[in-house]
Structures are given as structure tokens and as C-alpha cells.
């Protein structure tokens, strides 16, 4: 029998994988992909609670999270392009001019 806990644990695992990706990878594009993974985990969480509480509110908020994810992807990738044009790199370890 599937319960709420199954879906919450799944979303927790995916969130942890996404966080590992952000911490471990230094390629900015892959770091952004890991960020999308974390937002997906949040969406699973919202859908599971929407089902459990018998309310559509969770699903409405999934749409808002998706809109934020789309906006974040657009602005973030524009920043990456602008950065690459100036520095010829997208490795986060090499972008250290501001280090004190």
C-alpha cells in the first residue's frame, strides 16, 4: 500500500541528490540542472500533500514553483552566457576575482 511517506522519502532522496550536485560539481550549467532537480523534489512534495489533504492548493503552488524555475533558468543561463563572454570559463572555481 502506497502511503504519503513513500512519496516524501522519494522527494527527500531527489532533493539530497540535487544538493550533492550543487555542492560537488563546478560546471555552472550542471549546477543549475541540479537546482532544477531540487525544485522537482519540492514539486513532488507539494503534489503528495495535495493528495493527502484532498486540496487543490498544492497543485496551484506547483505551477507557481514551475514559473519561478522557468524564470530562474532563463536569467541564470543569461548570466552564464554573459560570464562566459567576459571570462571564457564556466568553472565556478576559476571565477574568483572577487575573493578577498
Amino acid at each position, binding site marked *: 500500500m502506497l502511503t504519503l511517506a513513500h512519496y*516524501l522519502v522519494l522527494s527527500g532522496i531527489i532533493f539530497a541528490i540535487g544538493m*550533492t550536485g550543487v555542492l560537488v560539481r563546478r*560546471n555552472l550549467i550542471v549546477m543549475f540542472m541540479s537546482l532544477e532537480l531540487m525544485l522537482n523534489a519540492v514539486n*513532488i512534495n507539494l503534489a503528495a500533500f495535495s493528495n493527502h489533504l484532498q*486540496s487543490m492548493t498544492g497543485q*496551484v503552488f506547483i505551477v507557481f514553483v514551475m514559473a519561478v524555475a522557468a524564470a530562474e533558468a532563463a536569467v541564470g543561463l543569461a548570466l*552564464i552566457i554573459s560570464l562566459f563572454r567576459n571570462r571564457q570559463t564556466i568553472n565556478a572555481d576559476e571565477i574568483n576575482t572577487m575573493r578577498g
Partner: protein
Amino acid sequence: MNAILANIGFWVLGITAVVSALMLITRENPVHSALWMLLTFFCVAGIFVQLDAEFIAAIHVMVYAGAILVLYMFVVMLLNPKSTGFIKMPFKVILGAIVSFVIFLQVMMTLMGADVIKTSQLTGISDPNNFGNIKLFGIELFTKYIVPFEIVSIMLLVAMIGAIVIAKKD
């Protein structure tokens, strides 16, 4: 019978999602990462179908697989980056994995201590008038959440203008 099928579906989709997410963060080539991300998105869409969110599943595939993933692919192909993209020091890779594992354990311990887990039957969205998922969704979005909806549309406009301004050549 139905419960067994739901169980099989959950485990297949869940395990595939986790494995492809792991592949996403371990591939050196960003194009491979993007393709594994596509598989993850499809599995998450299947999970949404299981959770009575069919409309969400459809727009999830459209927005993520159709729009965001193509954007990522464009940027990867446009930049053609040389770096393989892992932290140089293996010690720090292990440290990052341990940190996120500890945070995962904390989340799980909090979940298992919560009351909501003990009485957690998934009953499904109640639909007394036989409206269907999309109509219920529309009623909720355009009555209770109409102001946040308008604000989100303005946010998308701002993000679009911002992306153009940032990526433009001077």
C-alpha cells in the same frame, strides 16, 4: 489488482528517477547530464499522474522537457565548455556528499517524527461533482489565487526582459 499496479508503477518510476538523477550529477559531459535530466523529468511526471495531478504532469513535461531542457541544450552547445566540472580535490567531493547525506538524514528523522506520517493514507482529491482535474485546478487558481497568478505573470515578464538585457552584447 489496482493497488499492486500502483505499487509497481511507484517503484519503477521512483527508482528510475533516483538512478537518472544520480547519473545527471556524475556525467562529465553536460549534454549527457541534460539527457539524464530529461529521463528524470518524465519519471517525475509519472509520479504526478499517480498523485491525481494529471494536468500538472502534462505541463511539467511541456515546460521542463519542452522549454527549460531545450534552453539548457542551447546554452551547452553555444558555449561548448572545456571544463569537466568536478571539484579538483577528491576530499572536497566526499565532504560535499557527506554534508548533503547528513541533511537528508535530518529531513528523514524529522519526517518520521511527524504526526502526519502515522495517519498517511493517500485518499485522492475529492471530486464530488465529477469535474475532472483540470476544472478543479482552474477553479482553485482563478478564484482563490488570482492575485498571485497575476504577480507570477509579471515576474515572468521581468525575467524575460532581464534575460534579454543580461545576455545582450553591451
